[in-house]
């Protein structure tokens, strides 16, 4: 795992950026989180986290094409970088390793 520590929310957002690929922008991420895990997150919190992840080099962003929706404003599209993917993978592995260490049989009443 890298030297940067990733918080739970950061990891969630990073994962979502990975899932949504070319269509990941603020609102889409909020909606996706609501759909998939039923959690209400705040748009501003998502934005702040996205910018922080960008600072860390885990995602990068570009402006999408102009549309008629959104009052003509363009979307800021985020994509996951290789570093971001590596970070996600490393975190998953660490978690799996730890999971294996938990005794799987629990005796009731003890």
């Amino acid at each position, binding site marked *: 795992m890298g030297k940067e520590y990733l918080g739970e929310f950061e990891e969630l957002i990073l994962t979502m950026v990975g899932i949504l690929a070319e269509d990941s*922008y*603020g609102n889409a991420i909020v909606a996706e989180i609501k759909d998939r895990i039923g959690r209400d997150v705040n748009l*501003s919190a998502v934005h*702040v986290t996205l*910018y922080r992840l960008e600072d860390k080099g885990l995602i990068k962003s570009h*402006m999408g094409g102009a549309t008629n929706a*959104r009052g003509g404003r363009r979307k*800021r599209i985020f994509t996951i970088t290789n570093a971001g993917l590596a970070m996600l993978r490393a975190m998953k592995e660490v978690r799996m390793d730890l999971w294996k260490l938990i005794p799987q049989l629990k005796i009731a009443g003890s």
Partner: protein
Amino acid sequence: MKEPLRDPPPIPLRFLEWFCPPALYEGIEGDLLEQFDMDIKAHGYKHARRRLVLNIFRFFRPGIILRNRFSFQLIDLIMFTNYLIVAYRNIRKSKAFSAINVCGLGIGLAACLLIFQFVSFELSYDKFNEKFDRTYRVTNDRYQNGKLIQHGTIMYPTIGPTMAKDYPEIEEYTRLMPGGELNVKVNDKNYRGDYCHFADEHFLAVFTFPLLAGNKTTALKDRFNIVLSEKTAKKYFGVTDGNYTDIIGKNLYWGLDVQPYTISGVCIDPPPNSHIQFEGLVSYSTLISAEEPHADNSWTWSDMRHYLVLKPGADYKTLESKFEAFSEKYFQGDKVSGSVEKFFLQPLKEAHLYSDYEYDIARTANGKAVWAMLIVALFILLIAWINYINLTTSRAIDRAKEVGLRKVMGAVKSQLIKQFIFESFLITVLAFVFAFILVITLQSSFNQIVNNKLSLTTIITSLSSGNILIVVAVIIACVILSGFYPAFILSSYQPAVVLKGKFQRSSRGHFLRKALVIFQFTASAALITGTIIVSRQLVYMNSADLGIDIHNTLIVQGPELSGYDSTFIQRAESYKHALLQVDGVVNAATSNNIPGNRLGRSFGIRLAEEPSSSHYTMSNMSVDYSFFDTYNVALLAGRKFLPTDHKVNFDDLNTVIINRNAVKLLGIDSVQNAVGKEIVWGGDGTRKWTIVGVVGDFHQESLKKPMEPMIFRPSYGANNPTSIRLKTADTQKVIADIEGIYKNFFPGNSFEYFFLRDSYQRQYNDDNRFGKVISIFTVLAIIISCLGLIGLSSYTAVQRTKEIGVRKVLGASIYSIVTLLSVDFMKLVCIAALLSLPIAYYSMQNWLQGYTYRITLSWMLFVMPVFVVLMIALFTISAQVLRAAMSNPADTLKYE
């Protein structure tokens, strides 16, 4: 069908645009608008709009706002360097102006800082007490025949406990009584000169004087217990390691008392900003015994001070309004104590600055004077700032080309304003540095004047964060305000006009500049008037005929270890006789009090021929037969005391002397008729005395106090001080001789003396201090105003150089040019001087109200300052004006 409202509200979006970094703005706004559209479909417009506003505010968070910095800082830094360079060049280019600006502002700030120290100390009194907000002092006014006869803090010992019993809103009460001098013997060594109070066991709960050793709740409970202050504990027991527990339980002997007192605690020294000061506290219960319970239950003995702590939330005014019923219930008009009693509550926060009580143990100062000093200090600061504004605007033309060029290069108005405010900030910072240097160098002399140990660091560290914020806010506001006006003027120049070279001195700001000069000189002239009147009043008080001679009078404290017995009068007389043998001693007398001190009052005096229901109040004094001769008090009728009037047994005394005011009070038509009359005084309204003489009124206390009716009785007291009138000559040797005699007569007692005039003048310490501070400030105000005037006049002179040249060529004389140049300024100063008259008159009239005996305000006192101000102003501008007038037109006009 008409489309329902769909547009997003513009103001919140503009707010978003304002704080959001431009790079992120589009993406964020887009997301918000998309959300908004979806919300309209799902919930309707109102709901959507509310959500949008809420969401925008959610974006107002550090994670977004702080992303602004990078882009802006770079631009600012470049321009900032440029501003700095330009400011530096400007300061160098016009050294005199910059020096005037920095000095003027610096002096003003320094004065303000010094006064701020002083004022914040005065306002900090008693705040260290934890129950400060809820603590009240009970005060007591007494009326006889409808007239106020005493306005004091002393009352009967029953007041505190009875009030606490009757009114549930009182959480705690404490009573105390001054215990006088602490003449103690510790391990066979005598100590003198410390003072103590008798205080009950609640005292340490009401006031916050933490104990360094001993138990707070029980230390003052038992009889013959004493709590020492840290200072006295060190002095008596030589404690050096700060461990005071060892001296708890040790004994000391007080005065002639054979009963030892037990040390039950050691408390911190009372802070200098405590209105109660003491070196020791003796348990109040010491005063109470089965045989002598008066200190606990008397309704006539009034030497006790009471403090109440109210329960949180209780309103003291409500409680105070119940005191009328209290007084009626326990005092039944004037039946119990001989006078009608009214009780009041004084919040602890007013005890130091707003007390005018008699028999006050509080350290007091004149609150009005403290505020007056603060106002004057702020005035000076204002004058200094006005100078800055005035000089900067008047010199605006010098900067006009720079402004024009900057505008051509693309500078917008807001940038120029920023630049000039930055410059004023720079000058202010320099002025602050200068002010701090001044304060540090002047601190010790200032401390001498105000007689205190003030320092900037203690004040700053003692400030609460709230106050610091206020101070910082005031400074920033001043910087912006002083920079704003010049910045506004400068930044509004039209580049086209300025750069063409046609730009002339604008008449705009003329009015303001004049108004500012008038304001400055009004303040200066008012201050001069004030100073003159204050110093006149001080001189008057110091030289007034007191009706009593206090010059060359040496006071020797009475022997602290001698007791009164049948041979005492004999001893005192031979002591006085021995003193008279000393070469240089004119006369000597003993009395229970000396001029300058508040005397005790007797409330139940009447003429023997009057019914027993009538009461008169007089101040009383016990004196020996040589008192009136020693003090040169005029005898108006009858005779002075004779040695035969003195009786060994106090109960045998039957002669009194009264003063003229007492004759008036008793309603006797002439002083001659008073002699021989009998009065009733003391002994529960049965004891009769014969008036043998009437003396003239004299100022027992300062001229702030009225002369009261007085009654004298011929008696000696074991610890009475001796007043010795000296010939001027060599006092050193005389004092040494007197000490020899004293030691001879009273071996083992300590010899303490002082000159009466010094102690009497101490009553004016507060006034002298005010006088000194106000005169210093006046000088400062004049200096600063003059600095401004120099700057302004030299600038006008330079502006009009060419005009003067032309005039001279056309034949104008130096005189006419001097008049031309000065008349403008002198007009302003004249207006200012006239404006100052009513201000000075009103405020000084107000100030003089505090003195019963005062100077009358004559018109000369007001004309003189006007004249002084005019002369100063004329002198100030004369150098500049003369130089301009004498200039050679050939030099000034050669480039035209």
